[in-house]
């Protein structure tokens, strides 16, 4: 299955990644190959296999509603490229939340 350059652009936009025209070409080929591989997998007959999304075999894992330990503010912010008065700072987004 061939992935078009437009589709690559769309996926890149959704993933918030800047992609050059050259890369679009390259990724469209690479991603198409991955899709081909999936097509190959799709040939296996799985009609009597229950779909599963979790391989741990566990169910109903829950935790009691009680307080644990939080990170100190300095630690929480320690990887932030930019911070101010205890806040993470990013370039302005103006869509009201």
């Amino acid at each position: 299955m061939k992935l078009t350059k437009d589709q690559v652009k769309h996926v890149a936009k959704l993933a918030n990644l800047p992609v050059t025209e050259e890369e679009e070409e390259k990724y469209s080929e690479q991603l198409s190959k991955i899709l081909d591989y999936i097509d190959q997998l799709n040939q296996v007959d799985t009609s009597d296999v229950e779909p599963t999304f979790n391989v741990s075999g566990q169910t109903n894992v829950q935790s009691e509603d009680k307080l644990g330990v939080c990170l100190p503010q300095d630690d929480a912010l320690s990887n932030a490229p930019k911070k101010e008065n205890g806040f993470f700072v990013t370039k302005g987004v103006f869509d009201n939340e």
Partner: protein
Amino acid sequence: MAYGETQAMTKYEPVIGLEVHVELNTKSKMFCRCSADYFGKEPNTHTCPVCLGLPGALPYTNQQAIDDCIKIGLALNCKISEKSLFERKNYFYPDLPKGYQISQYRWPLTVNGWIEVEGREEIRRIRINRAHQEEDTGKLTHHGGSTLIDFNRSGVPLVEIVTEPDFESVEEIRDYSKKLQQLFRYLGVSNADMERGDMRLEANVSVKREGESELPKYRVELKNINSFRFMVAAVDYEIKRQIEALEIGERLSQETRGWDEDKKCTYLQRSKEEAHDYRYFPEPDLPPFFLDPKKIKEIKNSLPELPWNRAKRYQTKLGIKKNDAQHGRKHKIIPQEIANYLINKKSDINTLLPTQIIEEILDKRVGVIENEEELEKMAKEAMTENPTAVDDFVKGKQQAIQVLIGAVMRRTQGKADAKRAREILEKLLK
């Protein structure tokens, strides 16, 4: 009911659905044990690797939040799903540290309910599509050219309640929103304060020609509106705007709009081209839930009498008029209180107005019972009365405490703070 009779030959009907988000008042967050009590706290002091979305951190579901979501679903006549899964809703925004929100999509906790609302003339049923569990995002503040992020709110439990597009008037919207707010407070699952953002409304509005069975091809989302009054005004404005646009042959499109209170109009926030493509898929870090019918029954039995049922009971049994019944319902007055009042005062029931009785009862009330000893006494009585629940709890069945809380609430005629009652019971049961 039709809009636009006066200005044109064609009549139109609005098609409106509502989405309500309510923040639960659990102690800890949805998928980590950071405090969920974020309001007014120092920024980024209630965080951990899970709610900051750091690599390798694993979510852990909050049991109380799941129970609260089920309570809301049950109160709205929803079916509780046998199997329920969380999914990732993927999008990029600075308030979402993981790049996805853990939400529900194909396997919500509760589905297919209904609620009765009062419109202009009649009482109608609004279908509830789902009440599902998800997590809140961080809080953004815009400051000069940049945006400040506080992740204290990130991961706070949120329940989303989605209706079918069944509303026909703004009166129904108002009644529905107020009923839900009252319900959250009755169930003790949220303070449901709109201004603080505990409860948020979104409306999907479109219009169609009267009698047309097909739903319109577009819908306008009204978002970020933080009061009942503004929401009603926005929907009203939007219905008129859309009818006028259709009248002059304009094509309406999918978009998100907000409400400008100064100009009294809605305004474009986001158009269709930017519409999200969320690519939901099951959250691989959280195993599925299989809900035990026995446990659901226990939760159902622990529910207090619902506000609208109580109002109905007043009306039929006590012959109280509707408005007075609603007044009493709002303040959680129970018949026993009214009876006590009448007996103590030797009042003449024929000359007293029901409203007057309610006002006087409220005057005499000290509000919530804060007396520790009194609460403890009632908690002990509740324990003696419900030995099985005590036994179950001691054996490790956390859920059993609901029965005891319910018993305390009944004893105090709803005047105890359910959270406080729980704490006292937990202390006594240790």
